[in-house]
Structures are given as C-alpha cells and as structure tokens.
C-alpha cells in the first residue's frame, strides 16, 4: 500500500509536501542526491497545480499518493482544478527565458528531465497526473 497526503492549494503547503516525500524516500533508502531530485520534481508539479490550476485557492485540495515497488516509484497527484497535461507543454528555451527576463518556465522542464514517465488523465472531475521514476 502507498502513502498519501492531502494539502490545500496554498504556496506555504509546499514545505509540508516536500517533507512528506523526503521522509518517505528516506524510509525506502533512496540515496540523497536522487531523493533531492524527486522531491524537487514533486514540488514543481505541486507549485504548478497550486498556482496555475487552482489559482492559490485554499478551498481546493491536492492529493498525492506514493507507491514504491522494487523497480519504480509512482507519484500520483489528484486535483479538481483546471486540467493541464505537462506532456503537451512546450518549455521555453533557456535563451528565450534569459532574453525575456522571465522567472517562470523552468519547473516543468526540470520535471521532464528528472522523471522517466509522465501521464495525465481525467476521471470523474479529477485531474490525475502520474510521475514514474525507475530505480535501479
């Protein structure tokens, strides 16, 4: 059975979700450097869901489930905000970010580079985003 946490859509909940994921990865003996990257990817998806999909509305909630198997870790996010498929999003290039002096745009690029598989679906009014990381 996996472990779950529910947060409300407020930016100060990010600390809580990072701690939850870090604790679980530590419990499953995931090495520090890899754990740090996975915590980052989860943080980026959550920040995106909080800010863009749910407009920082603390009435809305995000549920995160973690599932560990010997070969992979699956992170599943469920929320009812505006649906957004990360796979359809084309991250801006670094040159573009520099020249436009934009601060946003790097988060989903990090998620794509850290995770092995990203899936998006909708089910009974819920958006479901699954991040899969293969472990050695």
């Amino acid at each position, binding site marked *: 059975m996996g472990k779950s946490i529910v947060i409300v859509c407020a*930016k*100060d909940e*990010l*600390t809580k979700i*990072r701690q939850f994921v870090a604790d679980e990865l530590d419990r499953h003996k995931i090495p*520090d*450097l890899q754990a*740090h*990257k996975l*915590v*980052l990817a989860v*943080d*980026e998806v959550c*920040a995106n869901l*909080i*800010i863009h999909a749910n407009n920082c509305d603390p009435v809305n909630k995000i549920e995160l489930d973690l599932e560990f198997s010997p070969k992979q870790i699956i992170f599943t996010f469920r929320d009812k905000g505006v649906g957004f498929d990360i796979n359809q999003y084309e991250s801006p290039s*670094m040159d573009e*970010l*520099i*020249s436009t*002096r*934009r*601060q*946003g*745009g*790097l*988060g989903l*690029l*990090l998620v794509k*580079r*850290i995770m092995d598989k990203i899936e998006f679906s909708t089910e009974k009014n819920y958006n479901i985003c699954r991040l899969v990381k293969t472990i050695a």
Partner: protein
Amino acid sequence: MVNIEKEKKDNIHIIRVSGEVDAGSSIHLDNAFKEGMEAGESHIAVDLTNLAYISSAGLGVFVSYLDEFELKKIKLVLFGVQETVRQVFDILGLEKLITIAESEEQAIEKLNG
C-alpha cells in the same frame, strides 16, 4: 523558509542565502537582487553555503537577471553550492551560464579578476 543577509566587503556586495527557496519564498531572493541593482552594485557574490534547497522559482530569479547584468556589466558569482543543489543547476545547464566558485575567496578573486 529562506533567510537573506547582505554584506559589503570592499567593492563586493555579498548576498547570503540560507534555508529553502521555493515558489513561496523566491520573492525574497528577487528583492535582494533588485535592491542590489538599485544600489548600483556592480560586483555581486551570492553565498549558497547554507542553502539546502532551491526550486525553479529561485533558479528563475538568477536567470531573469542575466540579461540585465550583461547589459550593465554587472558581475555575478555564486559560491558554496551544496552538491544536492549543484545537481539542479547541472540538470538545466545553468553552470554554463552562471559563474560558480568553490569558496568565498575564489568568488572574490573571480569578481576582481
């Protein structure tokens, strides 16, 4: 939570960042850069020795100033980057765009060089 302290050492403006920089706290890092710009600083060193975590929101702050710094000939060097944080810079290739020194002494040398 992030904590930011500023210090002046000769001609160098040092910004010491500790704690965690995420989507909720990156505004403080941005403000520190803004203040440095407004004060006309031309040599900026950022001490990340006690920075345990940075997300894209914080990295975005660095990236968003690169163009202006180049235009205004402002030198920027980071130092004391922990291995866990360093790998995040590497994932995005930021180590090719931002000068990273090992120590404060080396950062000052690079800024004065």
